[in-house]
């Protein structure tokens, strides 16, 4: 009796791991396949796509071509500048607004909160026609500034929503104690609230970063010029141009994948904690 019970338990545990492992494999092997083939010669890519690179098949020709034929480093630094700047500004001003909404009782508070929440559900892309007009009339076409401004607007609604939920839970005593000591509202925000919100700030940073870094749409319509291309657009254009050069295509994909994978592996814990903590309700 007890034996069958145990055996059943082991069997089902084995099945569960089999399901999870096969799904994990399904999720990873395409990425893995591209990465290993980017380190192979053209012949080897076609002869045996599933093999790991070895002494005879190893080749960096794809990477050489990519670095010669495109401005990968420029694309990369463009993406970095846009993402980091947009993130810092949107989190800072988002936190300020979230604080005002969660702390102060003023006329129209609820209405303003709803107004700022519209952007969570309605995608900013739908306003693209007018955004392009606006960017042209501000003389910002083909500038990183245009992208940064749009991405700030895109990131703000969710940042404000998550942070104001979080800030509502900061104990009132802390703020009131500070107020009794005569601390100014600005100091309360910058020296008490902001540091206390660090875990939530980390979460919103990761949430907001991914769509900005990966976006194709706005770089394509607002800043398609060679000088302002982001990595996603750069890769897309490069591959469109060298579509038959498999070494270059695989190498450019690998170059685009690796930094994200690295970053993800470093921050996945924080990201997953952010999601599972119920930050997104």
């Amino acid at each position, binding site marked *: 009796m007890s034996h069958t019970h145990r055996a059943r338990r082991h069997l089902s545990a084995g099945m569960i791991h089999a399901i999870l492992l096969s799904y994990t494999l399904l999720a990873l092997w395409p990425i893995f396949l591209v990465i290993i083939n980017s380190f192979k010669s053209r012949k080897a890519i076609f002869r045996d796509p599933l093999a790991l690179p070895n002494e005879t098949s190893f080749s960096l020709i794809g990477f050489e071509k990519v670095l010669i034929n495109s401005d990968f480093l420029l694309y990369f630094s463009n993406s970095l500048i846009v993402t980091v700047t947009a993130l810092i500004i949107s989190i800072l001003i988002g936190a300020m607004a979230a604080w005002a909404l969660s702390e*102060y009782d003023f006329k129209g508070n609820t209405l303003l909160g709803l107004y700022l929440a519209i952007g969570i559900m309605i995608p900013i892309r739908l306003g693209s026609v007018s955004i392009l007009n606006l960017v042209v009339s501000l003389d910002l076409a083909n500038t990183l500034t245009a992208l940064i401004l749009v991405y700030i607007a895109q990131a703000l609604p969710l940042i404000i929503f998550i942070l104001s939920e979080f800030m509502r839970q900061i104990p009132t005593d802390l703020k009131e104690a500070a107020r009794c000591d005569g601390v100014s509202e600005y100091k309360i925000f910058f020296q008490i609230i902001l540091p206390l919100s660090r875990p939530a700030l980390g979460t919103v940073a990761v949430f907001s970063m991914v769509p900005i870094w990966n976006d194709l749409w706005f770089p394509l319509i607002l800043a398609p010029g060679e000088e302002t291309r982001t990595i996603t657009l750069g890769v897309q254009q490069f591959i469109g141009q060298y579509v038959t050069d498999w070494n270059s295509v695989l190498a450019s994909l690998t170059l685009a*994948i690796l930094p994200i994978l690295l970053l993800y592996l470093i921050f996945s814990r924080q990201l997953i904690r952010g999601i599972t903590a119920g930050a997104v309700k």
Partner: protein
Amino acid sequence: MTRNQSHIWIFLAPAVLIYSIFMIYPLLDSIRLSFYDQSETGDLSFAGLVNYVALFGDPNWSEPFWNALINNFKFFAMHMLVQNPIGLLLAAILSLPKLSGRGSYRTLIFMPTMLSVVIIGFIWQLILSPLWGVAEGLMWNVGLGDYYNAWLGEEGSALITLSLISVWQFVGIPMMLIYAALLNVPEDLTEAALIDGAGHWSIFWRIKFPLILPTIAMVSILTFVANFNAFDLIYAVKGTLAGPNFSTDIMGSFFYRTFFGFQLQLGSPTMGATVATMMFLVILIGVMGYLLLIQRRLTRYSL
């Protein structure tokens, strides 16, 4: 209160300004533009419903519009039928008690979600390409070689294939959200059910599932909004023309083509704005339906 409240507005102003200028104003202005006509010199003139009449009445517009809209619903249906059930299944498995390696599975399965849609599109394009033959080779290995087809190139299968690529990439999102909701179901409840004699199966369907219904509804509406806003994948894999023969055209790619033009047709900002307004309406109906009908009916149980 007579206390000085200027700090409130200083806290709010930067966010409200940027958000209003780059998000709300363009949305409203796009709707406004959809009622205008643009001459060849670029002058705008009020045109009433002309653009809408064209979009619905002129076969040159209405055929691609309905095609894109219907394709988009198919795209959404594939996500609802494949992505979310798989996400639910994975989440249910991941939340089983005493599972070893939970964290690693979670992290690895979520990985593709982090990559750019463009990159994922290219990766699958390569894998499915008959030139490279990876997919074909793999299928021969398991004896299914006869069934291989250049799915992305066939009118009948391209959209489904693209949907599945998108499902493959984003399955991590429903998985994580549902997993988080399952974690929030207090352990006491599952233990009480265990003592009541329920097995894992009935604990899941009779205790946990009813409690996470609000999350499942939320996942569905997020999927809806994301699907009707999709563009990158189609553009990366199929370009502006959403081929073959527009069989993969969805609202996002139709919008882009209308706005910027393609081949011989010139782009039209006002028609673009009209299409964007229609997308806005579709999304708005979906979101309102969710908020008014579904979310209200589902009671969130205080756990």
